[in-house]
């Protein structure tokens, strides 16, 4: 028999106030990503940037340095990254900005968050996502008169995916499972695709878990 727990109201209130104060005084993007260009350190975390990035930091600009000088914060314009240009120059990759939330505490409106539609290596995605690596000194504006030529891309057709049969023990186990579940017994042989067609990411694993739960029901 546990003693009845004492309800500590003041501690609850203090906890709520602490959460509220943390929310109110959270470091804004302009504070978090401010950079001292002489020593290449961030004053917020006092960490130094990697040496190989120093030349880029001096020569290129952040995304919001470009956005702050454009009408409507550059919504609708295309932006590339210099690292993409050097990595795969033949396949165009760019972000098209759809929504911008700028950090108004910054002096030159230099920081914030942005959302847009990514086209990576010529393949355009369907939904707008939050842009990552916005604070990297890596971004370039695609001028309007060069947009058409920049977007041109003839994708090399990919060779079809090859399939291989399973190892014998695993194949036997799969066939036995199929027989037990009484699915179509004279079905095609189980094959393994040589190129993974599903991107292993958090969303994928979560969806797999949900599927499994739906089939088995939640654990007791």
């Amino acid at each position, binding site marked *: 028999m546990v003693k009845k727990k004492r309800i500590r109201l003041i501690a609850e209130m203090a906890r709520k106030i602490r959460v509220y104060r943390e929310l109110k005084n959270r470091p804004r993007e302009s504070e978090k990503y401010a950079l001292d260009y002489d020593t290449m350190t961030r004053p917020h975390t006092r960490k130094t940037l990697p040496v190989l990035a120093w030349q880029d930091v001096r020569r290129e600009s952040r995304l919001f340095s470009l956005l702050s000088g454009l009408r409507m914060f550059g919504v609708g314009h295309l932006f590339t990254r210099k690292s993409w240009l050097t990595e795969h120059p033949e396949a165009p990759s760019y972000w098209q900005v759809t929504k911008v939330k700028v950090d108004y505490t910054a002096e030159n409106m230099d920081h914030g968050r942005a959302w847009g539609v990514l086209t990576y290596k010529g393949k355009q995605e369907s939904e707008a996502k939050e842009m990552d690596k916005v604070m990297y000194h890596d971004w370039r504006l695609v001028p*309007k008169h060069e947009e058409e030529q920049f977007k041109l891309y003839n994708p090399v057709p990919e060779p079809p995916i090859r399939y291989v049969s399973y190892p014998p023990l695993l194949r036997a186990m799969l066939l036995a499972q199929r027989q037990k579940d009484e699915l179509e017994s004279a079905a095609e042989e189980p094959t393994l695709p040589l190129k993974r067609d599903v991107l292993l990411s958090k969303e994928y694993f979560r969806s797999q878990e949900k599927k499994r739960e739906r089939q088995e029901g939640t654990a007791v």
Partner: protein
Amino acid sequence: MAAYTLKRCLGAVNVIHKCGNHRFIARRCLLSTSYTDTKLWDAREKDHQNLALLASLMDRTYDRNFPVSSLSISRFVDNISSREEVDQAEYYLYKFRHSPNCWYLRDWTVHSWVRQCLRYGARDKALHTLKNKVQYGMFPDDFTFNILIDSFIKDEDFKGACSVVEEVMLQESFDLPTTQILSLYALSNYLATKPELSMSEERALGASLLISGLKQDGSIGLSAQLLGCALLGKVEMGAGIHAVFRGMPLMWTPGYVGRALAVMERVAAAPGDDKLSKDAVDYLEGLLQDLSSASDSSSGEDDESGVEEGKKEEEVDEDDQAERDKLPLYASRFKVLSGQLQSRGKVDPSPLQVLVSILVQQSLASAEGPDMEQYQRKVGEWEAERQQLIRREKEMRERAEEERRAHQAAKAAAKQG
């Protein structure tokens, strides 16, 4: 002066030929008076507010960390009535830009700010806010840009006009033909005065010429492209490709001198009537000669100051070095192409300025018509939006009043009962 007398003669000629046309009597300003007058703008419904009250309201709202609505700042700008109030409005524009509502600065507020600045003779203020558009959120639309450039051209302040054109270039808003014509006029007149240009000025002029020339077809557009590419090529040879495209809407692939030569090649090969102005071709020739002589002299001095040069060359990029090595190639190709252009009669001996003046007389009047219609439509839309904002504010205030009254009544009832 020569340009002024030329325009006077041409203006007089036009007055004789088209007697009823009053447009060319005001010789120095380009846009017609119907374009620049404020009748339509002043015919809007006035919303008289006391500026001091508005200012105190905004200060209180900022102190309490609440957002200021775009309606208050637009009311403030609309009700400016003297030069000092222009300065106060500038301060409040700065504060609005640095508030959470900075996105909602309305187009009509910017337009009204520019109009008020021009009316109270605060044109340098307008230029200052435009130059620091990041701090003031000043992004005018095409019509407003046209009015501003015209007022600078009217006072023969071509340097100021070129600064405005530079801002137009940074926004890449050369869509309207009126803007293109006005900016080319300002740029050509400024270059005709043969000013001393620093590297950043050259970069800005080159980029403006290139981008406005791309939109304009015909000999003027091509000459502007050629001159722009030549200027940018000069900056590229001097300071590297990164210095060229940083902060400008320009392509980052090196080789701007090569692009200039490609323009010449295109004109030489094209069957049409387009010509290149002699100014542009001469400038490119002079530039190539300067650069070749500079590189010859520097290679001559190399043996003497070998140690210092070695340290400096680490900073020079490989791409830039490759560009500079191509210089003799460019020079030889230029000789071939200019010979071709001369032989096919595609070099126009008149300077760029005269060509642009001819273009102005031919096309500006016709291009103004659709602009005016669009402006009228836009003013109508802005008015509707403004009235809707005023109505919404009134409704919200009434609702807050009612709630407060209900709350007070409830408290009084609770106290009594």
